[in-house]
């Protein structure tokens, strides 16, 4: 396997050919927040938190969806990037209704973690307080749209790993919403296999197990990567 050498924040790293910039960043042990990215799922580059500066390119590139190139030099922590990241996190908080104190994912929430990582103590942008719904029609799980950040991990895991494609994004712009079936109550969608993978991968408390109450959610965000590896390489972890 051929190897690429890159420089991440001044540190030289080697990654296998075909890797993304994100893999290189991780190889350099640099801290780079992500929200929409999840190992095992196709990257969509939607949350813009993993944007990095690539020397010689005028535009910021999403590390999760950009192929590593031999000799490239990237910066992940310029003051400008930190500022943009913090603003993006503020925008996430302002566009939804995120109240950690009584959220099922309190303590196990990637949005919360990212807010801490970027040092966000308040939002400079006014909260929008959108009117959204909670769908508790499924016998095992529920979806609280107030906490959804539209990362589309649920859409992708259901389509790419489970093969059921229960979820998709409907409408557009600020009206975007995750829907099940023809915008039906989740519990009525026959395609759902009750596998719970969408709940496993949700970065926030939007999708959760009905048995869990405040701060009890235990996500399993490693599962798509394990399943993909099992499928692609015939490599099973639990044997």
């Amino acid at each position, binding site marked *: 396997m051929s190897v690429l050498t890159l420089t991440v924040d001044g540190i030289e790293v080697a990654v296998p050919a075909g890797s993304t910039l994100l893999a290189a960043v991780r190889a350099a042990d640099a801290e780079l927040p992500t929200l929409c990215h999840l190992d095992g799922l196709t990257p969509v580059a*939607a*949350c*813009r938190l993993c944007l990095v500066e690539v020397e010689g390119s005028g535009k910021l590139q999403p590390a999760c969806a950009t192929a590593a190139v031999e000799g490239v030099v990237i910066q992940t922590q310029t003051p400008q990037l930190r500022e943009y990241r913090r603003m993006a996190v503020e925008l996430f908080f302002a566009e939804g209704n995120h109240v950690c104190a009584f959220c099922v994912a309190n303590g196990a929430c990637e949005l919360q973690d990212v807010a801490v990582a970027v040092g966000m103590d308040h939002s400079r942008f006014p909260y929008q307080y959108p009117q959204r719904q909670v769908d508790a029609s499924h016998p095992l799980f529920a979806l609280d749209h107030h906490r959804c950040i539209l990362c589309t991990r649920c859409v992708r895991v259901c389509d790419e790993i489970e093969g059921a494609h229960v979820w998709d994004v409907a409408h557009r712009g600020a009206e975007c919403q995750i829907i099940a079936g023809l915008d039906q109550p989740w519990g009525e969608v026959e395609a759902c296999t009750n596998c719970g993978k969408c709940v496993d991968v949700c970065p926030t408390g939007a999708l959760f197990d009905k048995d869990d109450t405040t701060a009890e959610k235990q996500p399993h965000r490693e599962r798509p990567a394990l399943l993909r590896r099992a499928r692609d390489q015939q490599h099973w972890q639990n044997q």
Partner: protein
Amino acid sequence: MTAPQSLQLRCCDASGCRSAGAGALHAALLQARDQLGGAAEGVAIKPVGCLRLCGRGPLVALDRPGSGGIYAGLTPEQAPELLAVAAGLSHGLADQRLGPDHPFFALQQPVVLEGCGRVDPTSIDDALAMGTYGQLQRVLAECTPEQVREQVKRSGLRGRGGAGYPTGLKWDTVALQPAGLRYVVCNADEGDPGAFMDRSVLESDPHRLIEGLAIAAYAVGAQQGYVYVRAEYPLAIERLQLALKQARARGLLGAGIAGSSFNLRLEVRVGAGAYVCGEETALLASIQGQRGTPRPRPPFPAQSGLWGHPTLINNVETLAAIPAIIREGGDWYGAMGTAGSKGTKVFALSGAVANTGLVEVPMGTSLRTVVLTIGGGVPGGEGPDGGVKAVQTGGPSGGCIPAALLDTPVDYESLRQLGSMMGSGGMVVMGESTAMPAVARHFMRFSVAESCGKCVPCRAGTVQLLELLDRFAEHRASLADLERLEQLCGMVQATSLCGLGQAAPNPVLSTLRHFRQEYQAACRAPQLCEPLTSCSLEAKGP
């Protein structure tokens, strides 16, 4: 180009004049000719596409040796009189006559629009008589794809959809991909408010576009192509469909075109109301029947486009320039325009200006010439700048250029330096009564409504920008708002996924740059803003 018939009335039958009553006028002319008989019988009456001065419709052009001209604002009652003029029996309607020396027409140099308003858009025979498809046939018989691309490279043509990427380079990139399937796509999703160049080409001269697209397909080795037209243009879709049918029937599309071994299938895909589909990767998703959301580039569509195959995407105006470039040679086209922006550009001139319509001029023509000489300035406007306050170019991705900079040459670089951009060619003139924060809010509303919602800076950032602009437009902003506005503009510009989001702050940034005092005046305590320079990013709110 064939000489016009000796006696002919060309009646504009494009959307603009249709809405102004061209249909009734055309019927009245036919009826009047029957009734008048005699000398009037020799006057041919032909429906054509856009005659360009859309604001004065319905328009009819008279071809008559020595005394031709365009007649504007005609009513059906005036049809007999016009026929009498055409037949040489009257000298009436002089008030409504615009000669070829009229400033709106005199400075124009039609290349893309050379057939517009001359050819009957519903007749392939008329198009063939004008020489359309001649270059396609010549290229198939005489040229290699490399030779075609060489001419396009020599012409210096750059994409007319907005970004201005060199067309020849794009064609090379697609052509030089590893062997396999390739696609060509014509982007006719003209969505910029204030732009109607592409609609006019589709409605007025669809065969020219098909010829340009077919030449492009030959040059890059594609056998399948799509024209993606926005659904808001029903007449353009109808005429394009008809033209495709006619071209297939004549063997100018399909298998073994014009006796060569070149095959090309072209299909129309109709949009469904999404501005973002003008973005390349969103357009490809839409052609594939998906939500029109963009994806990160690279890979560029030239490497991996429709169904993963190399795909050439060009805009209508770009492709419509190709037949003339091939006919006259790349050097001929490259001799027009400026060093960095070759050839001619079509602008849709509208807003607070006397003459609204389509303007095709060489690149590098000054804004002053376009807006004041050709456009005639603001009606009733006075002073050296003709009452113009600003000119908006580039639609929701562009900006406002103040009257003080009217001498700017119109080319890609000059407009970008001023914080605006060429965009697709919309040019909206604004008079003194237009408030700039309100203009910025107008465009931000558009961006909010058209954001696809995929990435957070565009989805949530534009909503916050609109709220901030509401405060300025309604005179209840604070200095802290000005700081937040600039910070957020910078963030949305730098971090959005696609061109729509990246360019959404441009109307704000350009009006902040050239009309900052209007934003300052909208703050609750404007006196704190003096002197003007203290309102920079470093300034802290009260």
